[in-house]
């Protein structure tokens, strides 16, 4: 399934990054970060075109030879990026969308923990478990 999942905060600082084992971590970080610019672009363009769907799911942000980079943003300006292998054609757009929604839901639970300080790195057993299940396709 996914090779990288990342949650990026309001001020574009990473709150959580998961990278599949054996992957080039740095490269994927870089790709995720580049995705942010595209997300920013998409958000601003939407406000200018009335009648847009204003969907939280932003679809494919861009693709390289090896990877596809997908994006999602919440109303609270948190950005999610999921990266998959370009070769993986079994994943449909709708499945990516569902993954994001699950991720969003997991993130929401983290925020609702009274001991979590918003904007801080996410260190939560439940979230780890949830992401692991998500990327494993369970």
């Amino acid at each position, binding site marked *: 399934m996914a090779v990288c999942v990342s949650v990026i905060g309001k001020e574009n600082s990473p709150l959580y990054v998961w990278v599949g084992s054996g992957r080039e971590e740095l490269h994927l970080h870089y790709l995720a970060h580049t995705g942010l610019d595209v997300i920013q672009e998409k958000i601003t363009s939407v406000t200018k075109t009335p009648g847009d*769907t*204003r*969907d939280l799911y932003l679809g494919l942000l861009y693709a390289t030879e090896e990877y596809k980079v997908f994006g999602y943003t919440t109303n609270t300006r948190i950005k999610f990026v999921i990266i998959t292998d370009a070769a993986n054609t079994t994943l449909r757009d709708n499945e990516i969308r569902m993954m994001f929604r699950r991720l969003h839901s997991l993130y929401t*639970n*983290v925020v*609702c*923990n*009274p*001991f*979590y300080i918003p904007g801080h790195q996410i260190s*939560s*057993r*439940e979230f780890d478990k949830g992401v692991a299940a998500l990327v494993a396709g369970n």
Partner: protein
Amino acid sequence: MSRQSMRANDPKKVSGELFTLTYGSLVAQLLKDYENVDDVNRQLERMGYNIGMRLIEDFLARANPGRCYDLRDTADKIQQAFKLYLGVSPSIGSWSPGGDEFSVVMETNPMAEFVELPEHCLGLRYSNILSGVIRGACEMVQLEVMAWFIADQLKGDNMTEIRVKFVKRLEDAIPAGED
């Protein structure tokens, strides 16, 4: 897609989350105000006691449960109240042989739905307000009980369990000058 049609959120569910989150903020504030976790536990119990004293009147008014002269009745009413106010159906069990002690067991605890205890507050009895509520509510219907947590999912237990023990039945107040 219009925003309204996307609102799949169950409004009931959300309003339950409101008290869960409010309670979370309150506990966080107490931890900030007190240095000692035991003081927080005590304060939560006291708040619960105050709530219990008012909540029982609302419960009596809504459910019209009649009077309780037996601890099994009382346990049933507590179960009913958990359903009404917290939306969970705890099981009642582990009766002591003398029938004066029982457990209220929850599979999920709505008070602590999103909580993960940080390392430094492992001594915190996060949902201690519930034991206070039980004590306060019972006292208003002439029943002195003790209530305390013996298992908590936040601390790795399989379920959340509150123990309730009958202490004594309280008598009517005698009018001034007639005792």
